């Protein structure tokens, strides 16, 4: 479904992303994890067309979409959410979701019905006619997902939709993401919360200092010394082995 090859991006002297390659098979839930500042969001932004890569390529559903504009990528069926939620603050929750629904539905009544349906499925039912600005953090994260889903994507890029949520909210959204995937949408997600990644993803890729350092099942990754070092510091794996 998604093939990323040797994607690189440099900001001045900083090589934010170095030769990142990864595949997202159709129907899977794939995770991209890594410590703060590893380049996850930059990678996402390049895949979705928000940042132009310096080199490398992105193929989506058999089409080379490298350097495409975000709206064309979205129209093709790959839609991202934002880590820092970006609601249309002046609009109601339903109107927010409707903007997404308008991508595939030109009829206003149809888009409206579609938006209310998606919103209700994502647990935003009671909030649909309230202003988006009135949502809690968890509500805003749901709105991000709802709006993206309303575009009827084939591949959904979720950027830390669980950050800032409490454990019970995390459990709810984990169930929700699984439900979305079972509905036929492939998912690539960036996540910090290891518990969520382990519960959701079949495959995880670990990014550290802009480069991929490991790929595998969440279990394999958690046991990988290079990953432990990236998260906990140089020599941590060795120290843990000695003490553990």
């Amino acid at each position, binding site marked *: 479904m998604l093939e990323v090859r040797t994607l690189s991006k440099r900001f001045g002297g900083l090589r934010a992303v170095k030769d990142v390659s990864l595949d997202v098979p159709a129907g899977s839930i794939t995770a991209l994890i890594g410590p703060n500042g590893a380049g996850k969001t930059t990678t996402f932004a390049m895949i979705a067309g928000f940042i132009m890569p310096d080199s490398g390529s992105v193929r989506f559903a058999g089409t080379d979409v490298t350097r495409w504009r975000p709206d064309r990528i979205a129209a093709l069926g790959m839609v991202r959410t934002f880590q820092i939620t970006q609601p249309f603050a002046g609009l109601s929750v339903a109107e927010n979701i409707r903007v997404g629904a308008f991508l595939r539905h030109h009829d206003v009544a149809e888009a409206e019905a579609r938006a209310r349906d998606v919103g209700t499925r994502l647990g935003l039912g009671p909030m649909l006619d309230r202003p988006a*600005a009135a949502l809690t953090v968890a509500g805003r994260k749901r709105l991000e997902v709802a709006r993206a889903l309303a575009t009827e994507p084939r591949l959904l890029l979720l950027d830390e939709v669980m950050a800032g949520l409490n454990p019970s909210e995390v459990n709810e959204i984990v169930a929700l993401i699984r439900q979305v995937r079972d509905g036929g949408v492939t998912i690539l997600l960036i996540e910090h919360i290891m518990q969520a990644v382990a519960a959701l993803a079949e495959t995880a890729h670990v990014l550290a200092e802009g480069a991929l350092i490991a790929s595998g099942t969440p279990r394999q990754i958690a046991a990988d010394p290079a990953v432990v070092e990236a998260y906990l510091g140089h020599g941590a794996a060795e120290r843990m082995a000695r003490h553990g």
Partner: protein
Amino acid sequence: MLRYWPILAVVAALLPFASSSQFLVNLAMLTAFSALLGQGWNIACGFGGLTSFGHAVFFGIGAYAVAIMQTRFGINPWLGLPAAAILGAAAGAVLGAAAFRAGLRGSYFALVTLAFAEVFRILANSLDITKGGLGILIPLHPSLPNFQFADRRGAYALVLVLLAVAMGIAAWLRRSRFGARLVAVRENEDAAAALGIPLVRTKTQALALSGAVTATAGVLYAQMFLYVDPNIAFGAERSVEMLLVAMIGGAGTVWGPVLGAIVLHLIQDTARMLIDTPGFAPMLYGAILLAIIAFLPNGIAGLRLPRRRSAREEVRRA
């Protein structure tokens, strides 16, 4: 009660037809004309958030187009009306395509529009076809086929018709797919792009639509006053009037520009009675604009439908 003020406005707008008072007709006509200008600006800038400080460029293009077409080429001004609208739309499309493709937003876009209008003012001042600073006088031939009105009420009726069309466009923006996507672009460009909205195309289309409406106002002006010169057509004061009318009343609403035009004319006429110093009007405009931005970001219409404020209240409650 306050909800029904549009009905009152419509009744008030029709009153001058029943009277022979030139004063009343003039007052109503100029107010409706301001509302039309404000609505032209509002279509791109209120709904789409494209802060234009140079909308006079479209107004001037319309006014000069109809003036040149009839004085030089003998083309009937009724044909000049659609032609001017097309030229206004084309100017909007060119300006939009250039500015938005370059990624200009907010105050940068405002500066470019200001410069664009200024370039046209200078061109009109120096070109032969516009008769430079002399301006163009349209010969007086009052008759309906000639788009000139012996009775001011005729001109006023036409202003009302065009205002109704402009408000119809605004109403369409409020309930259509295009309008919803345009508002989404105004609220958050990144999110809009992520949801598949082509930013440059959407904003350019809005500016072209707005340019067309504003150019028809220019045509009306030329036919009502039968004279156009570079300052009348492309002066910054005209641009400021347009955005003031929309912002006072409520940008991004159907009735805002009408409300704004009424209030602005009340303030203007009162101020003119009290202080008659040249240069006072721009100062007053500046002060009103600051006050609106500081205290009434959604205009007077925002008082009636306090969406932003209620949102904040609900956040507090949550």
